[in-house]
């Protein structure tokens, strides 16, 4: 029994049917962690990208270091840092879910920062020169000329990271977040049947990933990008 729901071990099918509602409760946690992590990633990533692009080296160098550090250290270590080390330093306990979402957000913010930078740099330099030659104000040029050409390059890459974040959520099981995979393992521990719950998690993940990829492609298709040469 988990979350007040009993399981039926009479047959594999009956077992699967009885634990599905339990796994779906975990799936909601997985989705919540994905969404919160992703929002943190795109916002922190934007800040990091802006800082790294700053003209002052005092700002851009530390930002570049932070991005490199976040990208080059394992998610698990960052998670342990947020969950175990940070409360030690600050004296404030962080709930497992929050720690997990923050760790996901931090790691992927570094990737997002690179996506923003790459998307902006992929716009040909001639566009900046045309903006100047036509005397358009630089802020206007950035928001109306450069950014509209960068966004169709940025969105698909961000979508891929959304899917990646979702697939990284099971790592949060090590800090006791009751996401889908953790719950499947608990059910396995208690019933000695790991095959059914873990297979179900696999299938649910497959469905989620396919849906997310479909959503990303749909948004990508809806983006206005007439005439923008995308390689």
């Amino acid at each position: 029994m988990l979350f007040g729901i009993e399981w039926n071990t009479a047959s594999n099918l009956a077992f699967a049917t009885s634990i599905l509602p339990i796994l779906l409760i975990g799936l909601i946690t997985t989705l919540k962690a994905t969404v919160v992590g992703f929002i943190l990633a795109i916002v922190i990533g934007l800040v990091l990208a802006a800082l790294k692009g700053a003209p002052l080296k005092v700002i851009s160098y530390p930002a570049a270091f932070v991005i490199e550090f976040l990208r080059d250290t394992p998610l698990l270590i960052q998670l342990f840092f947020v969950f175990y080390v940070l409360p030690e330093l600050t004296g404030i306990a962080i709930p497992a879910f929050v720690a997990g979402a923050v760790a996901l957000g931090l790691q992927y913010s570094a990737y997002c920062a690179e996506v923003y930078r790459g998307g902006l740099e992929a716009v040909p330099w001639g566009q900046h020169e045309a903006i100047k030659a036509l005397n358009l104000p630089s802020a206007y040029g950035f928001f109306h000329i450069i950014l509209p050409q960068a966004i169709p390059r940025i969105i698909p890459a961000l979508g891929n990271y959304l899917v990646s974040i979702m697939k990284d959520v099971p790592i949060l099981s090590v800090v006791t977040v009751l996401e889908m995979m953790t719950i499947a393992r608990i059910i396995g521990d208690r019933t000695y049947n790991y095959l059914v719950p873990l297979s179900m998690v696999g299938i649910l993940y497959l469905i989620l990933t396919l849906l997310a990829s479909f959503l990303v492609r749909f948004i990508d298709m809806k983006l206005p990008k007439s005439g923008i040469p995308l390689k």
Partner: protein
Amino acid sequence: MSEPMIKFDKVTKKFGDHVVLKELEFEVQPNEMVTIIGPSGSGKSTILRILMTLEPINGGVVYVDGEPLWHEERDGKFVPASEQHLRKMRSKLGMVFQQFNLFPHMTVRRNLTEAPIRVLGLSKKEAVERADELLEMVGLSDQADKFPAQLSGGQQQRVGIARALAMRPKILLFDEPTSALDPELVGEVLQVIRKLAEQHEFTMLLVTHEIPFARQVSDRVCFIDGGSIVEQGPPDEILTEPKEERTKEFLHAVLHPDE
């Protein structure tokens, strides 16, 4: 003699240790059409890019329409120009790029109306009228609602010329306008440039490898090599009977590439 429209006074430009322009002295009179020829890396495009304020200079003074371009006069001294001064000076110049640099996400018409509305403060109606006149001039009236990628290279470059003209500049800079084009599309672009040259309403500076065209339309041809002007004068003189050995070699290489 009237005051020159463009004057380079001992202008030096370096990229790192590499000196591109060496104390260059160069003048263009109002409504004069000057063609600059020379080997690649000779600094000819750099002259245009300095004028369009895309490249700062390392020494000397550039004057445009009687005023210093990269400097401002304060208490009788030249100080580096403010962005405000650069914006004012830039409005005198228009540039046509080798790679066109049209805005790919905007229709042809919006490419021509964007800056006049935002920068010159034209109403949308005025800007569209001006754009349509210019498109007619370059022979592209029927392409106004297309995106640049839907046009041929020659058509895109004609839009590029119209876009520069839409800002009503005094000086037009053409940076190898036909170098990125397929050979059969070069003619339509040169035709537009010829039309502008014949109007004598603009000071025009053209960097090109189209020697026969330069001979027909230019008032003056400058051969530049190694960051300074080797030889300049009327096109028939420079292109037919050059005095300098380097000019002869260059012209021979360009006109008879197979020898």
